[in-house]
């Protein structure tokens, strides 16, 4: 069973922040408030990364998601003036989608998570890896020919296309 120690308490706190923030995003009718809740939720994820001994990912989470993506979302919400204060409900299927979401959760929990990682699951006895990769090791892996150099270079081209496309679509006049 789960034992109660500092680790689980901190995990619970960050989980509540993450999930609570996510609920705030969905429930809020004001898009600006929603984007603030999103930042709150992303912060919880950063905390979870720390607990998983991945401090670099935690820093990335704060820098990129909270620092850049959060701001960009806020900007784009403010660009669309009319949409910041919409109070109308466009979608009346919230009950149905809620039921589907709960069902999906139960199916995944009972069908996938418990049999594999549960107390008597197939991988429950597998020891957790105690290897903590340093950022430098991650750096080598990213550019090593027998590891991840192809996805690494591809990402730069992906960002190229994303930037060019976004600029073309977002600019107001053709130059």
């Amino acid at each position, binding site marked *: 069973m789960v034992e109660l120690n500092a680790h689980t308490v901190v995990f619970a706190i960050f989980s509540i922040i993450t999930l609570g923030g996510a609920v705030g995003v969905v429930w809020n009718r004001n898009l600006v408030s929603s984007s603030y809740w999103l930042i709150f939720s992303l912060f919880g994820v950063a905390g979870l990364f720390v607990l998983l001994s991945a401090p670099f990912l935690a820093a990335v989470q704060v820098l990129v998601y909270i620092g850049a993506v959060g701001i960009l979302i806020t900007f784009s919400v403010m660009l669309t003036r009319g949409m910041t204060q919409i109070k109308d409900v466009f979608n009346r299927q919230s009950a149905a989608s809620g039921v589907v979401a709960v069902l999906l959760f139960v199916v995944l929990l009972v069908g996938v998570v418990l049999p594999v990682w549960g107390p008597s699951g197939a991988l429950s006895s597998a020891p957790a890896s105690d290897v903590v990769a340093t950022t430098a090791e991650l750096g080598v892996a990213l550019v090593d020919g027998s590891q991840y150099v192809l996805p690494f270079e*591809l990402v730069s081209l992906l960002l190229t296309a994303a930037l060019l496309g976004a600029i073309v679509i977002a600019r107001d006049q053709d130059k």
Partner: protein
Amino acid sequence: MGEFDLLSSLPAIAPEIGLTILIFVAVLLDSFLHESQRKGIAYVAALGMAALAIVPIIPGWAPEPGPTGDYLFWGGMIRHDALAQIFRIMVLASGALTCLMAVDAKRVGNKGEFYTIVLVATLGASLLSASADLIMVFVALETLSIALYCLAAFKRNDSKSTESGMKYFLFGAFSSAIMLYGFSLLYGFTGQTNLYALAQFMGTEAFANNAVPVLAAMVMVIVGFGFKISAVPFHFWTPDVYEGAPTPVTAFLSVASKAASFAVMMRFFIAVFPNDLVIGDYVIQNFWVQFMAAAAVISMTLGNVIALSQKNIKRLLAYSSIAQAGYVLMGVAALQATTPLGAERAVASVGFYLFMYTFSNLLAFAVIILFSEATGSETIADLAGLNRRSPWLALTLTIALLSLAGVPPAAGFFGKFYLFTAAVEADLVWLAMIGVLNAIVGLYYYLVVIKVMYVDRSEDEDKPIPTSQTYRWVLGVATLAVIILGTVGAQVIFEWAVQGAGTLFALLPGVF
């Protein structure tokens, strides 16, 4: 993974290196050329991609097993085998033709960014068809998708175009997320990301009772691929995006993205859920084969039936492409064949079908671009009298539609022939029967378009459609390809595809 050897690894990504250089050059040209000169980028990109498409055919450049003794290169990120080469040729050819087709398209052709993004999308599709690692599959797929989202919304002042970009993005992001969740489950089960290592782990005793989790992960992955190939029930985006996106983008989207996704899908399922993977008492292959067969039946039927009532030619081709995806899925389902040759012929029939589909569909879209740029209309009824306006255009569109319908001497006949044969050889006679029935339904709506062009009269018959030199080249090359693939070239290309399919299974432990 053994020692990394740069020189022996470079040929494995030769097309991608070339594309990267082209992207680099295209961005610089776009930055420094004057606006009126930017159309030139189209020719640079198209010629570059055409040259790269020839590279895999050069004798002596055939894929060789790498330093690790198999076809895996770059740390197992990609598998450089003959099948990947065939799909790369399709992708590069469609990229090149798309660039040329876009030259005269208004508000698209004079923007250098368009060609750069097409190049990036081509690069993503090219890598995708060779990917052999969960991470590589995902990054390549996203490179392709994100580039296509931008392209779909490219006409920023056109509300239909932006709507289609938005729809494509929302559906795409959602299905990518589901697929990524499936990937993360597979990684969680095994601790491996290489496709070829996943199956070995899942076949071990530790997983004896865990068929349900593996199947759940499989279904999630199917959702992601099903979206990309627009198979029913993941097809909802297709008609709107095809209609709203700029037509050259629709052309590219309907062939390159689909071909690469089929390539990686076959590789994925053969590698991760091979026919000797038994978990508990379940042969996992049976599950996905049945998924594919079911999706094939629904896609063919729904696509063809709804296409019957379309008024817009781009929407017609959208539903037609859903139906075509259904035919191809038939070939994927035929992978249940119990002999190595049967499975190889199934893969080869898919490869051949997509090869001919690439050229047939591009040909059809090229004519539609010309027509809609000249008249501003995309409705089928306005095609009336096209034979009297521009007889050559009417003839090329007829050849393209006959090929899509599967009428000889156009290439589609052999495409369908090989697919149906593969299905019959894999004991899926019922599926082949449904396929034949659907081909007949399909024939009807293609013939209606041809009838409109040749029989119906219009008031504009004295106004020919202007066709520039570039377009004549595009139409000529694509028509030639369709005719050759439908006559003398069919057997040659199919044998080549069978050999390519052989390398897909070669050196796989346990399969056959």
